[in-house]
């Protein structure tokens, strides 16, 4: 099934859910409206056999592409293994919103793995519904992204910090989180 067919099938089953789709470097990528995420997830699991949630990865795009001005790099599809084909200057596509939450799905069982990626764009303060009800394994994945990236998953049964100490301030994987200069924890305990 091509990405176009998949996007059409999902849109048919859940109207106004897929806002964009692309082939991606590794797997088909569907951009999904946050409000329709659970419906799309349930549909993909039940009808397309995407029973395995590999990972939930949140990405902060604050300042994305700012440092690559004058980029002399590569056009996708060129042959990097023949010397001297350095491609043309190109700019990076601006992200739709600041955060992207990406769900990597796969089929485990008979037949090929058929991986698919769902992505949801969010601004700071926007929330995304939890998919714990669809794939129970999302429990810790979502807690991790909440902890380190500050994405709030609405309806999560136990949304609290998992990796950082429970009284930690801030979300370390955000791009505006200071590197160095933060107060040293537990110094008062000595």
């Amino acid at each position: 099934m091509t990405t176009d067919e998949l996007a059409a099938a999902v849109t048919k089953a859940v109207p106004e859910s897929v806002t964009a789709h692309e082939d991606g470097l590794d797997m088909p990528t569907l951009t999904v409206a946050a409000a329709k995420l659970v419906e799309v997830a349930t549909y993909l699991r039940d009808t397309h056999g995407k029973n395995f949630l590999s990972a939930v990865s949140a990405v902060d795009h604050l300042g994305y592409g700012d440092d690559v001005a004058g980029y002399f790099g590569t056009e996708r599809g060129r042959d990097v293994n023949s010397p001297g084909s350095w491609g043309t200057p190109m700019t990076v596509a601006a992200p739709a919103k600041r955060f992207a939450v990406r769900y990597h799905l796969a089929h485990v069982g008979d037949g090929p793995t058929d991986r698919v990626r769902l992505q949801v764009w969010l601004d700071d303060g926007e929330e995304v519904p939890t998919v714990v009800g669809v794939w129970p394994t999302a429990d810790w994945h979502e807690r991790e992204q909440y902890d380190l990236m500050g994405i709030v998953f609405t309806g999560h049964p136990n949304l609290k910090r998992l990796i950082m100490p429970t009284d930690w301030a801030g979300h370390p994987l955000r791009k505006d989180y200071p590197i160095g200069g933060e107060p040293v924890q537990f110094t008062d305990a000595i």
Partner: protein
Amino acid sequence: MSTVERPPAPVLPLYEPAKIPGGAPSKVDPPPGADLITVNFGPNHPSTHGVLRLIVTLDGEVVVGLDADIGYVHTGFEKNFEQKTYWKGIPYSPRMDYVAFFANELAYVGAVEKLIEIDVPPRAQWIRMLFAELNRIHSHLIYLGTSAVEMGALSVFFYCLRERDSVLDLFEMATGVRMHDRYPQFGGVAEDLPKGFYAECRRFLAEMPKRIDEYLDLLAGNPVWKSRYQGIGTIDAETAIAMGLSGPNLRGSGVPYDIRRAEPYLAYDRVQFDVITRDKGDAYDRFMCRTLEMYESVKIVEQCLDSMPSGPVMSDNRKYVLPPRHELHTSMESLIHHFKLVTEGFRAPPGQLYHPIESPRGEFGCYLVSDGGTKPWRIHFRAPSFVSLQSTAMMSVNRYVGDMIVVVGSLDGVMGEADR
């Protein structure tokens, strides 16, 4: 010697997460109103394979509530990767899962190679596969040794460490260090196999199957081992997939999901091996899967030695690959490339990709986002230990507290990887 009859496990309904609406799947809340005691188990405890904290609610000796807490060895690997150029990220990757170090390097290096679309010479692929399987043997030996020592079988631990040492000798011979080798690099491997490696490796391969026979003789039919392992931590195939288990944990429940077979990377489509499965899904089956997998790894390493092609072990694309050391003294261009790669690094095309491989613990994935700069914009690792430890609660509840140790051991979690 008279055998002590163990009282049968209490007859309580099996925990089924789907039937508890609104509850978190990785946590079991204790029943209200009973006369219960809550114990803090860990984070520093010899049987938790690192610093895993379990908040256990006990009814007598029976676990009725459990909440696992991780994060005690969180060192911010993902944030660190964002501050390093791609080349400088390689030494970081093996330090996450310090038992399956080579698999972690492969995932990171493989993801970056996919992004920059560099060709890896066939010989380098086969060398990587050889060491990936040696690393799998190493990891399973550590699992077997540590989970046996938790059952009081101290001698198995020493036997396993003896063979582990032979594996590490092979690593040392080829890479110069015993662990955390930085051997796979973008475009190939650091150096070709040294003289005498084949003979040394064949000697090990001749020895290893006999040693695995020995472990199975010691443990597989041992009544104490069977009474501690069989029927403990049972999980059915459907729940295992829903909880995201992978690797031997999933294959122990009868699902033949192995990325080496499902999406062959390196040269796994050119070697013969069996995907070991068992169908009961208890700790004993997971133990059998891992132990029998060592035979398969030995088979793959043998095939690597037999049919490894000759040729270069490193790509000659100097825009991404460090030039050979001797060229720096004679070639200005090599010196420039070396300087650029070491200081600024190479620029990877913008894009995102997810690169999963079969680590000894299951699906280890590297999710990489590039903005076209010299450093990864975001890197996220799908750590199989992180995922499998979620199932601790549902596997341990309604059993004796002693069985919880077996459950944690049988999931084979490495906390360095879970916390990153």
